[in-house]
């Protein structure tokens, strides 16, 4: 058993920042990550990181823009924390050497971004995330912080009091991918989850293969509520075969979208008569899909994004990397041919419920980054707001876990304070397929633990979690036949993309729930063909698939419950925002193997003012 003060799970932007902060606070900290830190998906971020740094800009303006962008589903204390701390964090990154692009006068460059009233998106070329990830990893090396890389965290060691808000997290269990052993990590002061997005719930995503939402799934099953899971951002221009993102810059420079008949559909079919291709992400995504559904897509799958008319010179000057992306990942030369594009899953606004200090309702358990939901993005994230979230909340979580004093949080977590129960009509029973309490180890749903009422010592809890996990892994490896996870995962991903995509209607959402139920049943039968204990990716992916299933279900349940159109969430039955009923977060708790739906009101009271919901018109 390894032992540290603070254990950080995940080594993307959020995890690295948390580890550095915890160490600066004096803690003995270690990172456990299934990928080597520099392989994390933060490296893919291109656009930039928002911070009010310049004269004429202020954190208040940034907060206002963010609240408006969230369609009034963000919590003011979290948003204000983000905007207040971000400038300091960006300067910190610069002091760590991050190679930001520079203005003539030598200061960091900033550019305008959608939904921002000031050009405050600080960037390093088209590779801000790469620079950020590597800069922070370098600081980790400098500080000699221990990294257990290629260790896959499979379970949290949490005490088992009846009420989740009484529970405590004592560590994690992880599988050493290279040599194949399970081991326990005891955390004396806290565990911080920073496992990134759940893009793999969908079959077409800009996210990495490793983004399977392990953190939210583990926290969910340990009793932490998931918040606002239905809000998924889809990016309208991704390459069909890989999901690689084609930046908005192409449309910004004048790129045109065509359907199969060569019609400029944004205008010709009236999706956005004013803005055309420049309409917001959700509008363009919906337009593209409408075209494809109406049979006007190319190969019934995608539309064309054409920039040839811009001329080679201009393209090479401003969009050179796009030429390479299209060639390398799609085999298309955009100087000669239009690029195929379609909407792809891009970002999850929801996640593990935390307060503005990064803490969840289980004490000693924290979350930061895309896997968390302190609720800064509400129902829709603005471009450039995820990277500051990583550093600001990563740092806070690290500090708090290491015992730093950040004051009492204003946001409440767990079923405390103001909340109401919810209900949703589902066609099949969601949650575990086996009856609650039944001994199902194979699917990781819990199993052998009988409640101790929270009376064990921390070491015992960690040991018990390790034992449970051993049993699970052994049973997965013991089976010699059954189904393979790849098939199950692919089915769910397909169903999610078909039914819980940009367009959501009741029938489709219900179909998705049926498909997920089906998948859960098949998963009872899952087996791992590869018996090797060396680098067994078959095993890892089989475990991941279980997490994908839980998250797919959470997303769909939220989407089914919320019958309004807010931010990224569009419902056919109710195509407008309904503030009277829906100014509240969708919460899902895992209770004895069943998702329990409830709601918590949005916090619109900021430090100095209360945000008034306004129409979001862009």
């Amino acid at each position, binding site marked *: 058993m390894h032992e540290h003060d603070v254990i950080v799970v995940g080594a993307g932007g959020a995890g690295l920042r948390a580890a550095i902060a915890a160490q600066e606070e004096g803690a003995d900290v270690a990172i456990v990550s299934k990928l080597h830190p520099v392989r994390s998906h933060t490296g893919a971020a291109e656009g930039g990181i928002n911070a009010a740094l310049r004269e004429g800009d202020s954190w208040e303006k940034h907060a206002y823009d963010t609240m408006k962008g969230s369609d009034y589903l963000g919590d003011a204390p979290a948003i204000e924390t983000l905007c207040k701390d971000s400038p300091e964090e960006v300067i910190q990154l610069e002091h760590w050497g991050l*190679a930001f692009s520079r203005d003539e006068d030598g200061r960091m460059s900033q550019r305008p971004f959608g939904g921002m009233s000031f050009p405050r998106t600080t960037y390093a070329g088209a590779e801000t995330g790469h620079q950020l990830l590597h800069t922070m990893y370098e600081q980790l090396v400098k500080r000699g912080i221990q990294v257990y890389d290629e260790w896959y965290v499979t379970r949290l060691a949490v005490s088992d009091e009846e009420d989740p808000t009484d529970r405590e997290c004592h560590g994690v269990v992880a599988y050493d991918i290279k040599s194949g052993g399970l081991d326990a990590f005891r955390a004396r002061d806290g565990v911080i989850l920073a496992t990134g997005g759940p893009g793999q719930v969908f079959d077409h995503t800009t996210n990495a293969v490793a983004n399977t939402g392990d953190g939210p799934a583990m926290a969910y099953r340990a009793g932490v509520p998931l918040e606002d899971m239905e809000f998924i951002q889809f990016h309208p221009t991704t390459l069909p075969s890989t999901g690689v993102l084609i930046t908005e810059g192409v449309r910004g420079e004048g790129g045109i979208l065509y359907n199969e008949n060569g019609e400029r559909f944004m205008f010709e079919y009236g999706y956005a008569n004013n803005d055309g291709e420049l309409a917001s992400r959700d509008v363009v995504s919906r337009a593209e899909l409408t075209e494809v559904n109406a049979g006007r897509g190319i190969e019934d799958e995608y539309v064309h994004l054409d920039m040839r008319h811009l001329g080679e010179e201009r393209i090479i000057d401003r969009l050179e990397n796009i030429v390479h992306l299209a060639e390398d990942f799609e085999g298309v030369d955009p100087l000669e041919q239009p690029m195929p594009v379609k909407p792809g899953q891009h970002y999850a606004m929801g996640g593990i419920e935390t307060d503005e200090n990064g803490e969840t309702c289980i004490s000693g358990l924290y979350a930061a980054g895309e896997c968390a939901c302190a609720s800064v993005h509400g129902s829709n994230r603005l471009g450039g707001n995820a990277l500051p979230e990583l550093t600001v909340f990563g740092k806070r979580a690290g500090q708090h876990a290491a015992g730093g004093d950040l004051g009492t949080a204003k946001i409440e977590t767990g079923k405390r304070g103001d909340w109401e129960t919810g209900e949703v009509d589902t066609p099949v029973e969601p949650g575990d397929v086996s009856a609650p309490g039944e001994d199902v180890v194979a699917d990781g749903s819990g199993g052998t633990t009988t409640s101790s009422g929270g009376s064990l010592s921390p070491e015992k809890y960690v040991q018990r979690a390790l034992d449970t996990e051993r049993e699970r892994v052994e049973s997965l490896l013991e089976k010699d036949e059954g189904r393979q996870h790849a098939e199950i995962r692919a089915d769910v991903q397909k169903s999610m993309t078909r039914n819980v995509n940009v367009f959501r209607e009741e029938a489709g959402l219900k179909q998705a729930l049926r498909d997920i139920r089906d998948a859960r049943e098949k998963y009872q039968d899952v087996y791992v063909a590869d018996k090797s204990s060396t680098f067994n990716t078959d095993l890892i992916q089989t475990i991941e698939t279980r997490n994908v299933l839980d998250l797919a279900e959470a997303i769909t349940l939220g989407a089914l419950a919320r019958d309004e159109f807010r931010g990224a969430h569009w419902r056919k039955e109710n195509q407008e925002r309904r503030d009277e009923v829906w100014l509240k977060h969708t919460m899902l708790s895992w209770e004895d193997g069943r998702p329990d739906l409830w709601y918590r009101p949005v916090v619109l009271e900021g430090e100095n003012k209360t945000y008034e919901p306004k129409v979001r018109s862009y």
Partner: protein
Amino acid sequence: MSTQVPEQTEEESSADTESQSQSAAQQARMEKKRDRAAQRDQQREAEEAEREFSEDGTYLLKVFRYDPEIAGKQEPRFDEFHVPYHTGMTVLDALMYARDEYDSSLTFRHSCRQAVCGSDALFVNGRQRLGCKTQLSDLEEPVRIEPLPHQEVVKDLVVDMEHFYDQMHAVEPYFQTNDLPEGEQLQSRENREKIKMSTRCIWCGACMSSCNIAAGDNKYLGPAAINKAYRFTMDEREGEDMKEHRMKIMEQEHGVWRCQTQFSCTEVCPKDIPLTEHIQELKREAVKNNLKFW
């Protein structure tokens, strides 16, 4: 049909009446247009034929297999997979297909699928490449896929990266300076431009694997680590004293002087970093530095 004849007519007739010349010119234009249309049609047909062929077609992969524990895989071998092709398919796509459809024990590292995580540097048809950044259509069949040479194979296509990481860590790969201002630390555009390419490294290890010298000398820092050092040495924000310190690291026995300018590192780098150029610049910098003391 040649377009030259009507063009000549045009020239001749321009001396004649207006109407005639116009019609001739018009004729010429129409002629050209028809030609172009015909050409386009032809091209499209050719493309379609190609696509049909390739869509039906499969690609043959020969993949290196090895597992120290599994009987039958302890002796390295090549497995063949026939993977159905679709346009835009990359080597990584093909591997994933083979794994998900045929053999779930086929093991390789991958994550981002967009050339930023550096996980899937492989030896494909005799050259270090990122699987995700290599179009199958650019390769000759059969596509031979092996783990990176000169590194210990853990299993199938997975190699041990520890040594590579050690070398990267050995060059003090982090920003350090003795004078930090309160607020922003300015940097000139030129200086940022100078280090830009060197900051692009994704730690894939392709360069190191391709370098004969690194293969022969384990202590050689290797192109990636030297490039990392370059990134900081040339960053004027660190200051002169740091630069001197960094040059000392670069000049160690197994540092820059080991490089024999073989250029293969530069050729395989998926991020197009001019590695040899950076190494050479450091050598010159070292000489300049030393001349001061000799």
